[in-house]
């Protein structure tokens, strides 16, 4: 699936690896089960490592591995399922995670701006998605009324203008 960052399609260096497959020497995404099971071996790996965090698992579950992880993938089973927003925010705010957070699954352009403000960095968009639509959707409302994990200019009343890249 194409990968969106800053409103543009970028190359995706990461590959998802099945639980029984051998890990390549390039950026690889594993399941949570494998991460937990093979923690010791994976810790010794040199190439970047990513994990898929299911929507019903709190980020606390991967806290011990976070300094080894370059990517956390959050899956939205349905776009109406907003748990990923809270997971992303917790990864940034509680765990200080600075790697890539990727939203995957069923995501619609109208969610892009909010995902970014919760700390998501990239979105796996459907095949053939028009990045211009996504970029427009994140720019259309350029004012926010509440604090978020994204560094914003200081509050005057509650709201301030956003600086969108």
């Amino acid at each position, binding site marked *: 699936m194409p990968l969106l960052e800053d409103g543009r399609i970028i190359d995706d260096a990461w590959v998802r690896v099945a639980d029984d497959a051998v890990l390549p020497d390039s950026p690889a995404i594993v399941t949570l089960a494998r991460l937990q099971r093979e923690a010791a071996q994976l810790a010794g790996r040199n190439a970047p490592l990513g994990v898929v965090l299911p929507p019903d698992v*709190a980020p606390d579950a991967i806290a011990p591995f976070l300094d080894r992880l370059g990517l956390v993938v959050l899956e939205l089973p349905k*776009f*109406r*399922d*907003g*748990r990923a*927003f*809270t*997971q992303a*925010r*917790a990864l940034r*705010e*509680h765990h200080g995670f600075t790697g890539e957070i990727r939203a995957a699954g069923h995501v*619609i352009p*109208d*969610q892009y*701006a*909010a*995902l970014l*403000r*919760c700390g998501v960095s990239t979105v796996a968009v459907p095949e053939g998605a028009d990045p211009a*639509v996504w970029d*427009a*959707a994140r720019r*259309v*409302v*350029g*004012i*926010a*009324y*509440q*604090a*978020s994990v994204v560094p914003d200019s200081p*509050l005057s*009343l*509650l*709201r301030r*203008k956003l600086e969108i890249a």
Partner: protein
Amino acid sequence: MNAIAPRPAAPIPPHARTYRYDAVDREFLAERIAEFEGQVQRRLAGELTEEEFKPLRLMNGLYLQLHAYMLRIAIPYGVLNAAQLRQLAYIARRWDRGFGHFTTRQNIQFNWTKLEDVPDILRALAAVDMHAIQTSGNCIRNVTTDEYAGASPDEVVDPRIYAEILRQWSTLHPEFTWLPRKFKIAITGAPHDRVALQVHDIGLEAKRNAAGEVGFAVHAGGGLGRTPLIATKLRDFLPEAELLGYLEAILRTYNALGQRDNIYKARIKILVRDLGADFAKAVEEEYARLPRDRYRLDPAIIAAIRQHFAPPPFLALNDTPLPEDPAFRAWAGRSVRAHKRPGYASVTISLKPIGGIPGDASAEQMEAVARLAERFSFGEIRVSHVQNLVLPHVRQEDLAELWDGLREAGLAAPNIGLVSDIIACPGMDYCALATARSIPVAQRISERFADLDRQLDIGECFVNISGCINACGHHHVGHIGILGVDKRGEEVYQVTLGGSATNDAALGELVGPAFSYDDVVDAVETILRTHVAHRLPGERFIDCYRRIGLAPFKEALYAAA
């Protein structure tokens, strides 16, 4: 969309205490309308599926009902100025059928709008700093508060300030727009609860400690619907500066753990009930972890918002005796309420004329109320959660003249708090989810008790009617609650007694087997006759019920059969 210029808005009355938008607030609204217009276009172009578009339109207050689109417009915490009410009248006339319907969430609904008109309606609203944002959808809804805020003698803290802060904080909140279900917050600043805070997802009581500092009792997990529950108190005195951070923690806990696979178990009340003490623990843990400074409510912000709600220029007056005219006295006895300032009063305007649709107002009536508000109440109007209107600050010496004006507009029904002051949801007449009619039941009850002397003799009694188990008519907390259900293709009505939505919040008890559409009014009659037969002198229905219990009512209702 073709740009029909919105009606040039009348100037805002200078002393009406609504939150005044500045350039940034207006820019935000324009952006939000542009976003919605873009969503409509992408839907029409097939880029959004109906499944994807539905929650987007709902978050802008647009429902598909039985016969047409319904647009629900936010009246933040029920506070309106005269220019805004005039604009609502204009919208009613131009894009609806000349009526609007005030709701128990202190909002207004237009039941006959067309999809293609909605962007123009939104622009007409924006012209008076109004919108339809988050009046539906699984997000934080319009915050409700006391309709007598800023006027009531028992007020300790002005809740409008915090209601406005919560409105801003929750507007397009990036993390809480896709919650498991809708989320409703109510706030009061008086010890007497007029907002039903114990049946809200979050209920806040603003109060002061011995040092005079503001804080909040925080209740969570109350609600009506299929599984009515009274809220659990999480904090007794949350310091003012911590309000937003603590609410973030509650919402995060709910967003992460609330059920999503079953719509009937998705409200926060189910999570609070199922987790028990662990819910409070989870909230406190989340709160302990979040960076306090980022979410701290700066006193400068509170002070800035407080300015919007500064008292209007009250005169130094003395209380004046009311005219003797018995008809005036009958109205004033129900509608006029004590004010914190001598010489002033708050006036409740009944939207429950005998045989009328509860909460409906015509465009002409809205304009009449706007005019009277400008003349007598600093241009300010409130919507009450029992679907009436309030003029908060009226000089006592003006009451007789105001009453004349209300009579001319057909708005002087003297029935506030009486049997015919009924809360009813739209029911089968409009709502796609309804299993029974509710408006016609309300109309028939009101006609049965049309005689004012009889209503006065019965005394205070709240009748609440819902057309299905979703309980939009709050039947569980009515002194008399009526729920319409479908029983093998026939509408029948279950009756509960003894509910209450105030400090002594309680859910009504079922009297017994349901009544048919034809019989339900007789059942109400029998219940009230039983009350009159058993009451002590001056005893209210609810007190009488609590003293004598369900048995005498049951016996009167079912013994004959």
